[in-house]
């Protein structure tokens, strides 16, 4: 009798733990993708792009507009741009996958435009000027999103089966198909990125710029074009992350501010110049965030604190991150 109760008790505990881990893995994958985008820019330009989240956010809203005539699932308030969307976009209510592909293309274009017309003219200016511009972009794009789509929270239709019954039971916990799908997507991104960077000429140019920008330019590497491609890819990844997160969490203009902090924390913990670190950091932050409310007694509305504390701790103990290179300063 006692033993049975005990088994039941530990079973429930186990179930909660596994469930929380699955939840953390979902958000962790989103943070990891955004962190990956941040790391890509940081590696090639030494710049932290504070607008990375907002650029992705705009992509998320593009998905929303392409998806449905009301612009949202379960919300009847029409959004600006909807009339435009149904009139001008062929075959308008696009299926979820097509909408996300469209948003990713938009994200790539946005990234390329930002690099070409905003960041490139600032080449050679101080890091402070360049970072200021990304902060300006953060504020500006957030304002534009607010202006066009309003402040309502909206749910994006998930491209993966996302009904109540769409899960695999593991140890009594529910591993949802969306979580599996998001991780599969992340793995595909990583494989594609690795192939791109290791096997293609553009990737070689990218690596050359990462290791020595001026040297690369001197031996004829097309620095500008490569950087434009880098920004386009990073921004596309951000748009993908925003579109996927919109399926689970509602999309709102403030969503990406929080996500940006999680992603930056993930990138910091993993090491700002390490793609591997970004993935590991994303997972760590996602798990910290989902495990700390039940096990550390942190109220759910304060879930921003554990990742923040983890970032501060990482800075204090291991400032270059888990996988980052130790910087060498030259006078």
């Amino acid at each position, binding site marked *: 009798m006692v033993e049975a109760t005990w088994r039941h008790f530990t079973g429930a505990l186990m179930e909660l733990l596994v469930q929380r881990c699955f939840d953390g893995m979902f958000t962790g994958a989103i943070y990891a993708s955004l962190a990956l985008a941040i790391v890509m820019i940081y590696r090639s330009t030494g710049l932290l792009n504070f607008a990375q989240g907002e650029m992705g956010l705009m992509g998320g809203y593009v998905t929303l507009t392409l998806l449905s005539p009301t612009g949202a699932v379960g919300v009847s308030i029409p959004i600006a741009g909807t009339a435009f969307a149904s009139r001008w976009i062929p075959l308008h209510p696009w299926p979820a996958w097509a909408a996300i592909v469209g948003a990713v293309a938009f994200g790539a274009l946005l990234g390329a435009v930002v690099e070409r017309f905003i960041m490139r003219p600032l080449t050679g200016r101080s890091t402070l*000027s360049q*970072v200021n511009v990304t902060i*300006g972009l953060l*504020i500006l794009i957030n304002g*534009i999103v607010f*202006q066009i789509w309003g402040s309502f929270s909206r749910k994006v239709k998930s491209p993966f089966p996302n009904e109540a019954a769409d899960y695999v039971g593991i140890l009594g916990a529910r591993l949802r198909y969306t979580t599996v799908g998001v991780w599969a997507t992340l793995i595909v991104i990583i494989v594609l990125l690795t192939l791109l960077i290791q096997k293609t000429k553009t990737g070689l140019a990218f690596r050359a710029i990462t290791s020595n920008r*001026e040297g690369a330019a001197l031996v004829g590497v097309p620095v500008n074009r490569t950087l434009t491609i880098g920004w386009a890819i990073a921004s596309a990844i951000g748009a993908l992350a925003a579109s996927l997160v919109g399926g689970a969490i509602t999309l709102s203009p403030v969503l990406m501010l929080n996500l940006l902090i999680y992603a*930056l924390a993930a990138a910091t913990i993993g090491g700002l110049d390490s793609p591997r670190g970004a993935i590991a950091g994303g997972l760590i932050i996602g798990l910290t965030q989902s495990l700390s409310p039940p096990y550390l007694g942190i109220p759910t509305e304060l879930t921003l604190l554990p990742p923040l504390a983890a*970032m501060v701790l990482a800075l204090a103990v291991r400032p270059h991150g888990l996988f980052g290179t130790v910087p060498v300063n030259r*006078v």
Partner: protein
Amino acid sequence: MTTISNEQDAMAASPALPAARMSRMSKIGLVVLAITVAIPPFVVTPLELTKLSRLVVLVLAVLGVNLLTGYTGLISLGHGVFVGVGAFAMANLIDQGMSLFLAGFLATLFTGAVGLVLGLPALRVRGLYLALVTFGTALAFPPLLRRLGTWTGGVTGRTVDNDAFVPPSLLGLDDDVHIWRYGVCLAVVALWFVIIRNLVNSRMGRALRTVRDNEAAAATFGISVRYAKAGALAISAAMTGTAGVLQSLLNPYVSHADFDSFLSLRLYAAAVIGGLGTLAGVIFGVLALILIPTINGAFELLDSDAIVFGAGLIIMTFIAPTGIAGLFKGRDRGKSESP
């Protein structure tokens, strides 16, 4: 190549060595400023004057950002937090029965200490980590305030006992409390301005600018980079705390909603738009902070003025890296700064 252009950029942003005498432009500017701040009490309603006072004290917050970013090269995206810490510290210290002066002083010190605690881990490393940590704090601040109900009044916010914030009877201003309050705010702001002006023209100010332009070189000169940064952060947070102290006295009701992350972003944008690394830039920055929302509201142009602040920040970085203040200075000295 990068190094050289970095230096040029930094030099363009830094003011000339401490001038023993003020330039003619600065003198004219000071007179214009003195006249400008003297006008409102005579022309606007008491309510509007109180509103204006609340914005005027934000000079301290923008000055705080400027000291940190303009003079030391550190980015803080969380100065709204320090305004909030100052305001709530003040409210709670008044509850303890302290005099306003003592409470304000302690609240200022407390905010400086909070800034130090927040920044120390980030300051150990070079780079943009302070921006990360402060921005994260700015985002976590409102939910944190909602949880700390004992001190902050939770979701609804709390009132501040500002009954003692009235003119002494011998001034005969009993019917014009708002004018007296406006005057006190101006005096406190002016006091901080003088302190910071002397600070940036002192040994410490030169140390800060050296740290900004080249950390390694600063260390070789015997400047303790870590102390310089920590000191700048503490002073910057403290003066921003004073802004919160005054705000809480002007509007005796403070809540988490007043200190969201966009306050921090706006303060940062205002500091850059006004001009980093010059004290005149602070004035222009606060003018931007006051005028942009006012104009936007009056003409009902945009749902949110964030677009203007963001675009302003980007445009100013392109056409005038030294901000509005730099535009004036450039005319004064001829074409001395071309980035």
